[in-house]
């Protein structure tokens, strides 16, 4: 990557970092992931005056302290990556809270510029902020800005450029006096390593001199700059911090100010069961020892450290901020409706309805267009290419695979436009607030609701939607459970099976049998999802109970550019990362279903076709040829690897009420559940088929097992539907979970548990039914 100086944007969630990032760097952002953590990393090349820099949008955080890898990103970025300048983005309307993070950053002595954002709202509220007092006390430049309207950006850029100027000067001075080793210039630092893998640095034994070299001034401000702030601790706490800082300086090779920052971080972050990585054992040991000693002495070390900062901040606020006249906030007036005990629930339902509509209906025209386009290109290729395996590879493998990827784009795009709107406006936090009561009972976070709901449409956008959940564990539980939600691709299967096994006018009490079946399947899927979430929480994804310590930010008007930017990022990473997996799997499945071909079968049908052409003509001939093609496809499928696999697993699936033809269908359905039906069409030798196709229904109704009994009874049909509710029959879901969880471990676990669950439950249903003699025909 680049050796350009790094400029980091840090700030509380909703402080306006992304807005500022987009305004400063435009559309040139690159997105990636932090190594090992599924948190997005956005960077862009940015010119600050004469300096070419790299701008990085860090995830929002209230503090540098951390308990989990995703929270550790901020501290690693600041204390390990050696940024040239840190821009702290503050929400000017909630300085009392947001200055805490600013203070933490300034304490490190890193060159800091504070972007005092939301100045439009600050002014409107009549509040008055003394920028000079803030700047003097924080030891940083403070620049008022309105990110959403690009106000103050020139001054901000100039302030950053000034810090970069200072560093360049210092660097030049350092080259003049080469003996002055520790003042190595930041641009000499191999910043490419941290940019690629900010958390990969082995901390116990720094292999290079980056840690010392990175910070020329090591926190000592250049002449003319105020000193960094230093909250005053009591003597005992001060001794604790110094003891830990000595160890930090030693094991992390950190200069004094950074060592102190590490010490404060360690004392407020490390805990018996934190999940932090790359923490030197010696640092952990001393922090633990100091905490235990403090506990034993009846002291509250956590409180002492935090209270010292807030004491400094309270003083700063009272000196620099004059509150405006008290007046009702717009947010309160909106919330009086949106989280009202009755109206709030109605509003909630309405918003969720819109999410639902967008997934089911609004995305439909675009999906239809994509499907038509794919079918047209397949037809075109079939027309211009000579028949053969290569043509089939292109049409049924590659083009079909591209189609399998593209069909998800409309739903993903619409869902993310909506979710980003909800998130940026502040309503998503209210969604969590309103529904948390329900979600917590199964160990899920309130923010899991929208992804779960989206799961009724399709698991792929739903898994992507879990990004709004901050904690990695909460995200994992949600994405592992939500493929059990009955997605719209399962619906055709319910329709086909119900229509096959029950006469159309069958009733259960006053209800039609179709309604009862659908209701039961959807209930089963919701129960299974919530049950799985509860079990996963206690087993594979064990972790701290999710908390609802959640800020309810003021409502704000989202900026269109941000919505489009976020949506485009989502779509792009889906296409690139999950898309390649889906394409590859489509080709593999096509090969399994197509090869090997039997030459005997081919020759036999060739002969029959010749005979037919000789004997028949006109419509009768066409019909006969189509029937022959369909029959041949069925026989060839039987010969293919998938056909053989279907037969191979027959002993395993027979107790579930399926035979090998169902087995092949289930294998084919892996490409997408609805493919189950078209695969069955081929197996039964009737060519193209969908869930409304009556030839397929008739074939299924008449089909028998080897022992002559009926294949499709009400019992085996219900068993088949139960299987489809619970089984992980979708390679696209697997691909997207791989992308979003960052490893194959999670999709493997998901596939494993869902398949096992589907097998066991279907087995119980079918065998119980058999034993009781239910629904046998």
């Amino acid at each position: 990557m680049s050796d350009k100086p790094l400029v980091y944007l840090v700030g509380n969630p909703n402080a306006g970092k992304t807005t500022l990032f987009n305004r400063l760097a435009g559309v040139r952002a690159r997105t990636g992931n932090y190594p090992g953590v599924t948190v997005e990393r956005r960077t862009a090349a940015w010119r600050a005056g004469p300096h070419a820099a790299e701008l990085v949008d860090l995830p929002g955080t209230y503090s540098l302290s951390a308990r989990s890898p995703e929270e550790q990103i901020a501290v690693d970025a600041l204390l390990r990556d050696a940024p040239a300048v840190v821009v702290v983005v503050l929400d000017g309307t909630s300085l009392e809270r947001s200055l805490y993070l600013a203070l933490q950053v300034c304490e490190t002595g890193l060159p800091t510029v504070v972007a005092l954002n939301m100045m439009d709202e600050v002014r409107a509220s009549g509040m008055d902020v003394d920028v000079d007092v803030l700047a003097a006390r924080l030891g940083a430049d403070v620049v008022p800005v309105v990110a959403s309207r690009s106000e103050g950006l020139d001054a901000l850029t100039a302030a950053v450029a000034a810090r970069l100027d200072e560093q360049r000067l210092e660097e030049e001075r350092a080259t003049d006096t080469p003996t002055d080793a520790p003042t190595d210039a930041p641009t000499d630092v191999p910043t490419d390593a941290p940019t690629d893998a900010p958390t990969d640095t082995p901390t116990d034994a720094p292999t290079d001199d980056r840690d010392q070299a990175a910070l020329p001034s090591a926190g000592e401000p250049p002449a003319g700059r105020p000193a960094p702030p230093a909250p005053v601790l009591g003597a005992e706490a001060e001794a604790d911090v110094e003891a830990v800082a000595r160890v930090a300086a030693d094991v992390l090779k950190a200069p004094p100010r950074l060592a102190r920052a590490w010490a404060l971080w360690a004392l407020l972050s490390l805990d018996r069961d934190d999940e932090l990585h790359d923490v030197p054992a010696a640092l952990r040991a001393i922090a633990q020892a100091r905490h235990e000693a403090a506990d034993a002495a009846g002291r509250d070390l956590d409180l002492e450290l935090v209270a010292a900062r807030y004491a400094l901040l309270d003083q700063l606020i009272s000196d620099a901020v004059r509150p405006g006249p008290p007046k009702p906030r717009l947010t309160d007036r909106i919330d009086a409706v949106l989280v009202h005990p009755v109206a709030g629930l109605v509003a909630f339902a309405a918003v969720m309805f819109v999410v639902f509509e967008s997934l089911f209906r609004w995305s439909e025209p675009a999906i239809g267009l994509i499907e038509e386009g794919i079918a047209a290109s397949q037809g075109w290729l079939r027309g211009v290419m000579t028949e053969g395996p290569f043509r089939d590879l292109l049409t049924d493998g590659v083009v079909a695979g591209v189609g399998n990827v593209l069909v998800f784009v409309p739903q993903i795009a619409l869902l993310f436009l909506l979710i980003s709107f909800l998130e940026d406006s502040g309503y998503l936090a209210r969604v969590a607030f309103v529904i948390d009561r329900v979600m917590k009972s199964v160990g899920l976070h309130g923010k899991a609701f929208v992804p779960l709901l989206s799961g009724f449409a399709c698991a792929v956008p739903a898994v992507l939607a879990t990004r709004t959940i901050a904690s990695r564990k909460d995200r994992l539980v949600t994405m592992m459970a939500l493929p059990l939600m009955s997605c719209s691709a399962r619906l055709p299967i319910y329709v086909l099976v119900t229509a096959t096994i029950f006469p159309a006018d069958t009733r259960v009490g006053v209800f039609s049998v179709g309604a009862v079946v659908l209701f039961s399947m959807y209930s089963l899927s919701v129960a299974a999802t919530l049950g799985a979430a509860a079990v996963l929480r206690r087993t594979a994804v064990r972790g701290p109970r999710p908390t609802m310590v959640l800020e309810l930010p003021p409502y704000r008007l989202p900026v269109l550019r941000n919505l489009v930017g976020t949506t485009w990022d989502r779509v792009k990473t889906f296409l690139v990362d999950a898309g390649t997996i889906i394409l590859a799997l489509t080709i593999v499945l096509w090969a399994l279903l197509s090869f090997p071909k039997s030459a005997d079968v081919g020759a036999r049908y060739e002969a029959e076709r010749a005979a037919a052409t000789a004997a028949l003509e006109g419509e009768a001939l066409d019909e006969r040829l189509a029937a022959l093609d369909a029959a041949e496809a069925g026989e060839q499928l039987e010969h293919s690897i998938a056909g053989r696999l279907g037969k191979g697993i027959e002993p395993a699936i027979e107790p579930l009420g399926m035979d090998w033809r169902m087995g092949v269908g289930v294998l084919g359905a892996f490409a997408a559940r609805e493919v189950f039906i078209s695969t069955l069409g081929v197996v039964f030798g009737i060519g193209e088929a969908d869930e409304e196709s009556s030839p397929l229904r008739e074939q299924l109704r008449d089909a028998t097992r080897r022992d002559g009994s009926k294949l499709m009874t009400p019992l085996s049909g219900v068993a088949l539907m139960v299987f489809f509710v619970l089984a992980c029959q979708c390679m696209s879901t697997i691909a997207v979970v791989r992308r979003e969880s960052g490893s194959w471990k999670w999709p493997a676990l998901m596939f494993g548990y869902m398949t096992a669950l589907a097998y066991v439950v279907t087995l119980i249903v079918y065998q119980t039914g058999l034993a009781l003699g239910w629904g046998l025909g």
Partner: protein
Amino acid sequence: MAHLGELPLGARARVRAIACERPVRRRLLELGVLPGTELEIVRRAPLGDPIELSLRGYRLSLRAEEARTIEVEALSATANEPAAAPARA
């Protein structure tokens, strides 16, 4: 001594002590919920839990089980409408 979960809507209170698990406690402290901090109970979620607090010029939601661990001293109950803005909102 009362805890936060017991206070009626619109009540104002001053935090005395926080006694929950260390990770949550640290988070609350860093968010400015310190002994001595004044806060107001703004509303309950439509389903009764969590609750919304107003402190230090911003709004924070907490579950009942977390609110129970925060010991407070009730301040003169200004039982006027909860939407009334606290200072610096």
